[in-house]
Structures are given as structure tokens and as C-alpha cells.
């Protein structure tokens, strides 16, 4: 492990922790602008987290320890996920510990824990949210995995850093398989992050929501951790998209100057991605929960088509 590698690893995690709420705020702000509202301001998520951390945590009388552990586990999973996805540099000491499949597993672990915690209190909304979250999860997870696989077929590796190195080092070519994969990734990401066509982050109408129903019993610092973790998750998904489909500007190993340059490049790309997300959310309407399997089934099929196209175009070796 080189000292530069360790530095870029720490910088990457710190940047994710610090920028994730800002990214969520940016998306909310763009949404407000697109809807002709003035918006709460970019720093609103930080204020919210600060407020929640100050408050007492009110826990249901019969909640088990699992309920109190889960926010920390979810937060830990998302922090690690942001540390694995190469956002600033490809020289990451943590990278060999987890490849793309393990990253998908990491998201699954967080999802299972938050669902179990929602079932722990035993309220109607909690179990309903858990069921829906797992429903979205088991459909979106294979789609995400297939997106990674179609990228892995190009670079002959599931290691995220190798994928990024391969994709960023080659000349600008349009790969049809990646086009399919990009659409699939966007659809899976919308579902996984509880964004508009699947879930509405702004709603509080209990029967239509997934994520909010899931965390209904949380308050105080536990809720703050969960909210921070979901901001980190959105950040991680945005970074996955950037790493797979726009990897230029991510610092390669042994280039300290590039690392410093990578941060503003990342910020610029995230700003564009956030605006695109807000536009997508504004333009589409939320669908009924029974339509979600069709939506995600389409994402899954697109991802499989991406893989088939990748194999077809590569031809038999």
C-alpha cells in the first residue's frame, strides 16, 4: 500500500461523506427550480442532519437491539461502498477487498438490515415498507449486477479499478452494450434510491411510499445516520454511473497532481448528473407499486441484452 494510495483512499471516503448530503441538496434544489419553486437551499441536508443528531432518539418500547444496530450497519456499508467505487483515483488500497459483485452484495446487506429493522417494531407500515423494499431490491439487484457484468466483459475483470482503467484508457468509441447498460443502470438506480417513478422522496403519504415507510420508526441520531446513508447511496450510484460511462478524469495511480484535479472534475460531473436526475424526476410521474416489477423487469432485460450484445460484438475468440 503506497502512502499516496492510502491518502487517495482516505480522501475519497472523506469526500463522499462530505459531499453526499450536498449532492442530495443539489438534486432537491434543481427539482425546485425546475418546478418553479425557490427551494430550501443547497445546505439544507446538513442542517437536517445537524438537527436530527441533536434530538433524542425515540425508540419503540419493545424494539430489540437489532433496531438500534441497523442504522450503524447501513451507514458502515454505504461508507465502504463509497470507498470502493473509484471516484477520484484508481489507486485504492481497499479496492482488492471488494469487486463489483461484492459491491452489489454490500448494497444487499444494507438493504436486508434496514428491512429487518423495519420489521422489528412490528407496525403495519414497517412491514409493508420492508416487503416493498425487498421487492424492489430483488428486481434491481440482478439488473445492477448484469450492468457490471457487461462492463466486466469489456475489461475482462470484475475489479472496479481495472474496469475504470480499461474504459478510461481506450479511445472514445461508442459501445452499444454500454448504451443498454447505462439505461438499465439508470432505471435500477432510480428504484434503489427511492426516486420518482418508483418512490417519491418528497411524499409523506404512507401507503404509496417505500423508503419513508421503512424508516418511519426511526428518529434522532438513528434517523440522521439512515438519511446520511441514503445520501451516500445516491452518491455511490452516481459515482458508479460516472465510473462506468464517463471515467475520464479519474486519477490513475502515482499522479498526485491528477488527484487534486480529480476532485473538481468529479464535482462537475456530479452537478450534471444531479441536474439530469432532477429533470428525469420532474418529467416522470410516480407509478403504482404493481407497475414497479414491470419497470424493473425491463431494466433487468436491458441489462441482459447489454451482456448479450457485448458477447455478440466481441465475437468468439
Amino acid at each position: 500500500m503506497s502512502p499516496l494510495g492510502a491518502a487517495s483512499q482516505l480522501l475519497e471516503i472523506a469526500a463522499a461523506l462530505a459531499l453526499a448530503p450536498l449532492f442530495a441538496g443539489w438534486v432537491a434544489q434543481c427539482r425546485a427550480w425546475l418546478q418553479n419553486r425557490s427551494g430550501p437551499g443547497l445546505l439544507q441536508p446538513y442542517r437536517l442532519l445537524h438537527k436530527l443528531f441533536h434530538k433524542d432518539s425515540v425508540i419503540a418500547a419493545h424494539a430489540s437491539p437489532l433496531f438500534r444496530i441497523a442504522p450503524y450497519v447501513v451507514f458502515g456499508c454505504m461508507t465502504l461502498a463509497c470507498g470502493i467505487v473509484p471516484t477520484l483515483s484508481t489507486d485504492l488500497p481497499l479496492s482488492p477487498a471488494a469487486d463489483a459483485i461484492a459491491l452489489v452484495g454490500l448494497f444487499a446487506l444494507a438493504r436486508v438490515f434496514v428491512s429487518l429493522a423495519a420489521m422489528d417494531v412490528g407496525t403495519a407500515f414497517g412491514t409493508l415498507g420492508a416487503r416493498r423494499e425487498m421487492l424492489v431490491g430483488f428486481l434491481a439487484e440482478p439488473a445492477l449486477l448484469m450492468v457490471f457484468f457487461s462492463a466486466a466483459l469489456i475489461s475482462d475483470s470484475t475489479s472496479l479499478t481495472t474496469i475504470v482503467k480499461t474504459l478510461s484508457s481506450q479511445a472514445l468509441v461508442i459501445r452499444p452494450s454500454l448504451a443498454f447498460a447505462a439505461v438499465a443502470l439508470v432505471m435500477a438506480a432510480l428504484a434503489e434510491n427511492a426516486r420518482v417513478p418508483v418512490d417519491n422522496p418528497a411524499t409523506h403519504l404512507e401507503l404509496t411510499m417505500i423508503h419513508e415507510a421503512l424508516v418511519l420508526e426511526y428518529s434522532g441520531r438513528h434517523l440522521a445516520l439512515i438519511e446520511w446513508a441514503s445520501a451516500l447511496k445516491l452518491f455511490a450510484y452516481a459515482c458508479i454511473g460516472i465510473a462506468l460511462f464517463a471515467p475520464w478524469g479519474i486519477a490513475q495511480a502515482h499522479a498526485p497532481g491528477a488527484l487534486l484535479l480529480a476532485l473538481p472534475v468529479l464535482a462537475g460531473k456530479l452537478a450534471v448528473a444531479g441536474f439530469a436526475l432532477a429533470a428525469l424526476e420532474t418529467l416522470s410521474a410516480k407509478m403504482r407499486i404493481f407497475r414497479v416489477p414491470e419497470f424493473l423487469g425491463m431494466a433487468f432485460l436491458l441489462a441482459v441484452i447489454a451482456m448479450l450484445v457485448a458477447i455478440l460484438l466481441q465475437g468468439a475468440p
Partner: protein
Amino acid sequence: MSAAPMLTGALALAAAWIALGVAGLAAMQRLRLVAHLLFPLGGAVGFGLLAVGLAAVWQGPETLVLPIGLPGLPFHFRLDALSAFFLMVLGGAAAGVSLFSAGYFRRSEGTPPGLLCFQYHVFLAAMALVLMADDAYAFMVWWETMALASFFLVTANHRIAEIRRAGYLYLLIAHLGALAILLCFGVLQANTGDYSFANMRAQQLPPFWASVAFLLALVGFGAKAGLVPLHVWLPEAHPAAPSPVSALMSGVMLKTAVYGFLRVTFDLLPGQLWWWGVVALALGLASALLGVAFAAAQSDMKRLLAWSSVENIGLVFTGIGLAVLFAAYGMRGAMALALAAALYHIAGHAFFKSLLFVGTGAVLHATGERNLGRLGGLLRVMPWVGWTALLGALACAGLPPLAGFVSEWLLLQSFLFTPGLPNSFLNMLVPVVAALIALVAALAGYVMVKFYGVIFLGRHREEKLAEAHDAGPWERVGMLWLSAGCVLLGLLPAQMLDVLAPVTRLLGGGALAEGSGWLLVPVSVERASYGPAIFAAGVAASCVLAFFLVRRLYHGRVRRAPPWDCGYPWQSARMQDTAEGFGQPVRQIFEPLYRMRRQLPTAFDAQPRYAVEVGDHAWHALYLPVARAVEAAARTIGRLQQGRIAIYLAYSFVTVIAILAWVSA
């Protein structure tokens, strides 16, 4: 010392199990002696077998001929890396289950404890001896002993008609399978009359007969393993048995069938054809998908786990099918990877499924309920069972950093090798298969959240659950060992792969890249790597750091209050999702897989009832027609049987006339 120290040791340990069983017969009604002495000793034998297997896996094969059995037909035994690995799995899982059993078995209506102890230990010994048998005769003798012992264990509670029916179905399909295995050995010996495995290895069968042998092995061992469409006995028999026995059947006995299949396919047959791999892959995939879809629809906790076993066996067979494909095209490295995935899943499944089954046993004892709709909130009253079962459920869901994820990871990695296959048809097919595997793995997570959440989390759905007691000390030790297995197999994959390397080499696989300490590296770091220990440390470190930073910078105050639930004050435990409710989305999405009968209430019912019954297409489309045909044939033949002596004399008369006419012509 004899020339075969490891094999002698393993055989002595199997004999020790039989001796313990016989001692149980001597102490027929003395429950305390049986429970607190014989079962823990059986557990110790299991640990011994684990150690012997671990030592023997590195060595070359040892053989031994014992003059027991019929005169002139001695038993051949052999201990090579494959047998040693399966002995390790058997020993490791049996140790935990035996320790658990020491606290589990009570005096009940059915079989007396001594007899149960006898059947239990003969079952274990028979499995060990199947794994070491080196001729068809010894193999079949112990295979049948295993089937019979487990049949009697399944029907331990034989006063219940449903259990007798499950046992009958199990026995029927087990014998159907045994028949196919016997025929398979008959083909393999190629008319030489020598049924030793050494002779079978030496035969060079033509492709046609090799294919016949392979298909017979697939049917025979598939019937025992619960491969679709021969799986119908599994969800009936596993829930019927006492929980430790269900644990052994799901965790270990299914694996002896996989052992037999591997032995025939990679060791006894001279080579592999590519379409064998496609057949095994397709059946494995069908089992995995059907198993997980049905597991999601179950509302009986043991039946749910039994269906989940069908799924896991399906994943194992998918790995084996892939290995056959690679072997047929001479891709030895990729074949080793696929085999390692299958073997890893076998070891992992032995631990986590045993753990979950004994966990349901503890729940069953504490509450008397198997129906998920009457459980809930048990984590608070049964913390030992609850927390160990959480580890088992996470491992079963294939989540990192536990055991189930490693095998899933290896399996998906080996799929990424398939674009190298020289058959373009397969190249196109395999990504679809990989996608389905990913779907199955994700659905397994859904099933496990349902299983764990409905049993252990939420509120008690029945009042009496508040008085449920936690598991006793023996049960805790057994569950701790099994959950330690789940964790260690998850955290030390590189070390485990070193153990698997001799096995894959024996079966004809190439070398796997050596993992470096904490990192699992099947090919090269550039290609893929996975370090669960670093991974777990990373998650744990950020959890702990977050915990202390939040306490330090803010506070750690907690207030207890009634649950919020959007301010609704009249909440009751009945408002939680039931098992049926939790399974509803899966039932809806995979509707064509089930044969569903719904009873929906109308708006005018005074007492509205909702009922849904989920049936298996295989049962109605395959088994019932066959059963009806057999019955109809029997009835037709039965017409001959009139019960009057004059008619029988007429039959004899007609027969004699017919024979005379035939002879004279």
C-alpha cells in the same frame, strides 16, 4: 500401524458412531444417559471426522479391503481428496447437530430415545461409509442403510398420518433413485463383472454408454438431492422429521448425493460431453428458481427451509454443470473455479442450513408452532437462538461477509469465463443463465428476510409467545459451532480454497491461483479479488467510528415510547404482515410457476375468509398422472383376481392348453 492410517481412522470413527447407536439400544428408555452422554460423544466423533478429513485432503488416496459383508465379496474402501472433503462437511455439520440434539430430544409419543439414538447414529455412520465406499456393492449397501435409517427418523412421530405419508413418498423416490444408481453402476462396469470402482475407472466406455451412465447417475443422485422434477419428497419429508434430523438431511444427506454425482461424472466416467453440462445446468437452474420461488410462498417455517434447500442444491448443480461444460472443452482452470464454487456452496450450505433447521427446532420446542402466522418477536425472548439464526439467515441469503456469498461470488466469476467457450450457442446462453443466478441469489435474500423477520422480529402474534424459553446450554453450544462455521467459511475463503485445491485437482481441474492470505484471488488480482476479512473490518470500523463519533460530538440519549406508526393508536400484532402477505409480491410476479387456488371474500360475507393454497405443478402434472396410471393398470390386472377357485382352475387349464398348442406348433 496399517498402510492406510487416515482411512483406518475414518472407518474407526464411523464404527464408533455405530457403537454409540448400539449403546443407545441398550439404554432404550434412559433419556438422560442417551441425551447427555451418547449424543455429545457422537458430536466428538464428528469433530474427529472433521480433523481426519482435513488431514487426509492433502494426501494421496488410501485404499483398504475389509472382509466384511458377503463371503467372497469384501468391502472396498478408499479415502481420496473428494471423500475427505465430504467427510469434513459431514463431520463439521454432524458435530454441531449432535451437540444440539443432546439438549433437543425429549420423551415424546413416538420412537423411544434409545431407538432414536440408534437410528440417528447409524444414519451418520452410513453417510460416512457411503463417502468412503470404493465398490458398487459397499456403496449400495450403505446408501440403502442411509435411506432406511433416515426413513425411520423421518417417521419418528409416526402416529401422525401426514408424517407417515411423507415418509412413504420419501422411501418411494429414494428407491426409484437407488434403482437408477444400481443400473448406472451396471453400465459403468462394462460387462466385466467386476463392480469395484477401480475397475470402472479403467473402462473406456463408448460415448453412448457413457451418456446412459451419466443420465442414470443424474436421475439416481438427483432424486436423492432433490433436483427438479424429483424434488417433491423433499418439502414433505424434511419438515416431517425432528429438527436435528431435518438439519442432517438438508445439510449433509443431500450432499452425499452430490458426492455420488461428482464421483461418477468426474472420476468413474472416462470423459465428459458438453451436452451433459447443459442438462445438469438446466436442471440445476430450474431447481434453483423453483426452489426459491416456492420458498417465498411458504408459511410453514420448516417447509420454507426445505424449499430453500432445493434452491441451494440447484445452485450446486449449476456449478457442477458449468464445470462439466468447461471440462468438455478442456478449460481446466475455469473448470476448477466452477467446481470450487459448487464445493464451497456444499460446505457453506451444510453449516447454515443445519443452523437454520436446528433454530426452527428450538423455536418449535419453545412455542409448539411451525406456522409463521403464529410466531413473531422471538428475538427478544430467545436471544441465543435469534442471534445465531440471524447469522444463518444472512449466510443463506448470500450476503457478504458470510459463507453463502463466497460460493455465489465464485459461481458468478466462473460464468465470466464462459465467453471463452468455443461454442457460440453456449456463449449466448450462458449470460442468460448468469442473470437468472443473480435473480435467484437476490430472491434468496427476500426469502430470508421473510423467514427471519416473521419469526424473530416484530410483535408476538400469539400471547403465549411471551413465555417462550431460550435454548438450553447444549443447544446453544451446537448453534454456536454451526454459526462459527458460517462466519469462518465466510471470512477465510483463501484458506478454504487451499483445502479445495486438491479436490478440484483430483477431479481433473487445473490450478487455481493461490490466494494471498486474506484475499481470495481465483485468477489474478487484476481480474477479480475479494477479501471478506478486510471487507468486514471496513464495515465494522466505520460502524464503530460512527457510533463513538456520534456519542462524542452529540449525545447518546434514548427515550422509549410506544411505536409511532404514523400516530395510529390502536395498533395490534395482527396488523403486521403475515407470511402470506410477505410472499404476495413474489407469488404475483412468478404466478405461472405455481398452481394457485384462491378463496377470496365477497363484499357481502358476514365472516370474510381469505385463503390461498400454493401447489406444485410437478405434482399435478407429473406425479398424479403416473400414480393414476399405475393404479388403473393395477385395477385392470386385478380383474384377473376373482377369488373363486373355479376361475383360477380355468386359468391353469387355459394356460396348459396354450402351452401345449405352442409346443406342438
